[in-house]
């Protein structure tokens, strides 16, 4: 499929920006994958770039796994024909081995439509697939969609469905099935959180079928980053059979590389290779076994004792014993996951900017990084433009601990407050309390159960959005406005700080509306500077995602910023 007028226009923009050095080669590839450019066109753009150092952007993952993802992106981020993403040496049947994976017991039912915890998502990502996959470096890779083309300045997207794909029960994949999957999510009665992800962009009725392998998405507003929304970035958008009703464990019919063979809500799930998988030659594995553990320590112990070979999610500070073990490798990738320290700008003591800045300046971010992430995280500068995003400004001075400045900002005022959080952020809270103690700011820890933390009414009293100071953990998003719009715009649905800055609102809207990289950078800078100055939230670091695995037994396992699993390239050593 060739590129349309709009795509060629955008490609030209990219080339121009790349030539002037405004964006790196990596960023070009990324944007190209989002725009759905064809392989030849990407080649042309890259040629126009000249040689450029790949490693300039922050989203490079330092290990070989990340490197291989880059090459895959170059080959497949385009609208090529039905060639598979890469052609590894296929492992003969029976010799692929079974990979044992540790996961934390899901606290809710595993369900592709409403599931939101990492273990549930990992499970249905083995049996089902998306239109587009999200690579660890945030480039997009065609999965069930072969190509995608924007029209009308990005208000309409035409997606070409991959041909020759069947579900594990033989039903062929067609455009109607894709439409049904999205209709299910966009139904106002739907229970899926994906509904809020599409809010303001796509509504029920906006999807039409042009022919058995073409789906058309008509958006509410032009949105250049729309492909991210129909990719794995919105994890509930797996393509399900037309008549899917659930429950998952009884109806796990998908197009994915594995087939569910057994499931127990307390023990785990077993999978075997899908022999009719469309990507011939893959997966190499004979099967996968996911084992549930009740808590993170037990999970690490399972890894150490050899019961499992890798994990779905990992906590960096618990991996010290594994790091010292030569049998294990810990793959790491920078992410956009973050733990946000929110302060209510409309309540004492945080209704004064100098107090907020004082608290921010009293924190030793490097120490936080060392203690909680073994130094692996990227430092945050109190704004939502993570270093991993191409449009993020790099010239705002990094806020660092400065106790003299704190005294100056406090101007003799004595500050004390209650910090509310749920158990997973306990360690972070403890470190903050201790550090602020050094600056004579006293913090009372208010730990709530997760249930309590998120209960109540989202519009009036739920603790995570209404307490004076709280800590909330966020999984990574591929696009910064997916954080900014809900969290920091004055009408944002998840705006816990109650920050209202019309200039920032305008900049956020402008960011989304434009496809011009330079313009995006300009708007991002406005947002970042406003947040850094007004400090409605404190962001000390951006999480690194790690995935440890037994490298003596396996290759092809990599970390993912959203803890997604992709075992298609896993093979025994």
């Amino acid at each position: 499929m060739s590129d349309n007028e709009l795509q060629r226009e955008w490609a030209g923009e990219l080339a121009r920006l790349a030539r002037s050095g405004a964006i790196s080669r990596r960023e070009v590839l990324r944007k190209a994958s989002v725009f759905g450019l064809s392989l030849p066109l990407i080649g042309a753009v890259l040629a126009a770039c000249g040689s450029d150092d790949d490693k300039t952007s922050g989203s490079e993952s330092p290990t070989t796994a990340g490197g291989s993802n880059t090459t895959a992106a170059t080959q497949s981020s385009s609208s090529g024909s039905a060639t598979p993403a890469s052609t590894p040496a296929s492992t003969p049947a029976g010799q692929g081995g079974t990979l044992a994976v540790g996961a934390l017991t899901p606290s809710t039912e595993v369900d592709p439509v409403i599931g939101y915890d990492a273990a549930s998502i990992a499970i249905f990502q083995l049996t089902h697939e998306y239109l587009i996959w999200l690579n660890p470096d945030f480039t997009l890779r065609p999965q069930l969609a072969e190509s995608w083309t924007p029209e009308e300045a990005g208000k309409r997207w035409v997606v070409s469905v991959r041909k020759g794909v069947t579900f594990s029960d033989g039903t062929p994949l067609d455009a109607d099935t894709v439409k049904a999957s999205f209709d299910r999510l966009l139904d106002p009665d739907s229970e899926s959180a994906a509904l809020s992800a599409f809010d303001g962009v796509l509504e029920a009725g906006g999807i039409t079928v042009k022919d058995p392998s073409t789906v058309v998405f008509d958006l509410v507003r032009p949105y250049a980053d729309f492909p991210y929304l129909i990719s794995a970035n919105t994890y509930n958008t797996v393509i399900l059979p037309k008549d899917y009703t659930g429950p998952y464990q009884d109806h796990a019919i998908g197009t994915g590389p594995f087939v569910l063979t057994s499931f127990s809500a307390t023990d785990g799930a077993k999978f075997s290779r899908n022999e009719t998988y469309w990507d011939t030659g893959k997966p190499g594995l004979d099967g996968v076994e996911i084992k549930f553990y009740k808590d993170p320590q037990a999970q690490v112990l399972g890894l150490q004792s050899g019961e499992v070979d890798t994990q779905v999610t990992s906590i960096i500070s618990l991996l010290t014993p594994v790091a010292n073990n030569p049998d294990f490798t810990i793959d790491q990738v920078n992410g956009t996951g973050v733990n946000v320290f929110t302060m209510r700008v409309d309540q004492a003591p945080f209704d004064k900017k100098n107090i907020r800045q004082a608290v921010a300046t009293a924190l030793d971010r490097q120490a936080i990084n060392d203690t909680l992430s073994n130094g692996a995280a990227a430092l945050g500068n109190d704004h939502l433009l993570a270093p991993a995003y191409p449009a993020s400004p790099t010239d705002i001075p990094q806020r660092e601990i400065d106790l003299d400045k704190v005294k100056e900002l406090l101007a003799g005022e004595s500050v004390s407050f209650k910090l509310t959080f749920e158990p997973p952020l306990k360690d972070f809270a403890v470190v903050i309390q201790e550090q602020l103690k050094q600056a004579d700011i006293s913090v009372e820890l208010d730990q709530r159960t997760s249930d309590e933390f998120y209960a109540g009414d989202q519009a009036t009293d739920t603790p995570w959005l209404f307490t004076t100071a709280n800590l909330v953990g966020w999984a990574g998003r591929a696009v910064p406005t997916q954080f900014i719009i809900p969290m920091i715009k004055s009408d944002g649905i998840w705006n816990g700080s109650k920050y209202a800055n019309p200039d920032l609102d305008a900049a956020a809207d402008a960011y989304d509306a434009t496809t011009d990289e330079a313009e995006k950078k300009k708007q991002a800078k406005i947002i970042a500077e406003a947040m850094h100055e007004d400090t409605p939230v404190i962001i000390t670091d951006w999480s690194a995602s790690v995935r440890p695995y037994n490298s003596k037994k396996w290759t092809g396992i990599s970390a993912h910023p959203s803890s997604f699993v992709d075992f298609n390239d896993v093979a025994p050593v």
Partner: protein
Amino acid sequence: MGGFLLTLALTSILIFALTNVIPGDVARRILGREASQEQVNAKRIELGLDRSILVQYRSWLGGFLRGDWGTSYTKGEPVRELVLSHLGRSLELGLIAFAVVVPVSLGLGLVAGLRNGTRTDRVITVLGLCGTATPEFVSGVLLLILFSVRLNWLPSSARDEYGLKGLVLPVICLVIVCVGYISRMVRASVVATLERPFVRTARLKGITTSALVRRHVLRNSLVVPVTALGVQLRYLIGGLITVELLFNYAGIGSLLLGAAQEKDLPTLQAATMVTGVVIMLTFVLTDAVYAWLDPRVRVGETR
């Protein structure tokens, strides 16, 4: 028995009241924090949580007594299968532990009592004391690291697929506490028996030590572990929660803990009721065993 059922009923009401009064929203938990308030409200209605507490309780009670224990809020599986399968695993673990505790504590207590005052006795007594004082989580962690991580002899979690191999460490863990306590009691009983006049008379008559042991000492001390176990059973069952958590064993203890933390009301209620009934049964059972042993002991005493 009647009093116990009353307590069970009261407990079920208490749990119901608590989970409804305490902040925490099952519907929100199922749908996640990013679902909209409308979606959550709709879910609450779907789960029947918008009805008054009395109506909900009555509905639950009716179903429960009929055998319909509902569906788990968080796991989506029928509660009855869930609770009974978990109970089965705990019973298996408990029975194996029991089967190990009786002979081991009897043996150790006998040896310590017979060798009263010697170093063997002191060693056994001290070890026993340490055993009772060592919480299951301490011994469990040490055993885990030694046998599972370091030596790789045993799995680090007790899953169904590992069978008995997975149960070795949890059983040892549970047993340590009980054996410590009961062996000390057996020892005390043995020592007390040996100081009785009829024993001295028997020795004077020339009866050998082994015959003495077989005919008198054994019978007297047999009663002790069983009755003491009745008391220790509470600790054994209580220890189940820790051990099941530590070794990832899907028993009733960990189901209870999980259901309480997740506010999974149907599972919590059913698991509490079932646990209560089982505990009551063990109590009745130990009472019966004691009564059965009692007349025989008395007969032995008059000799």
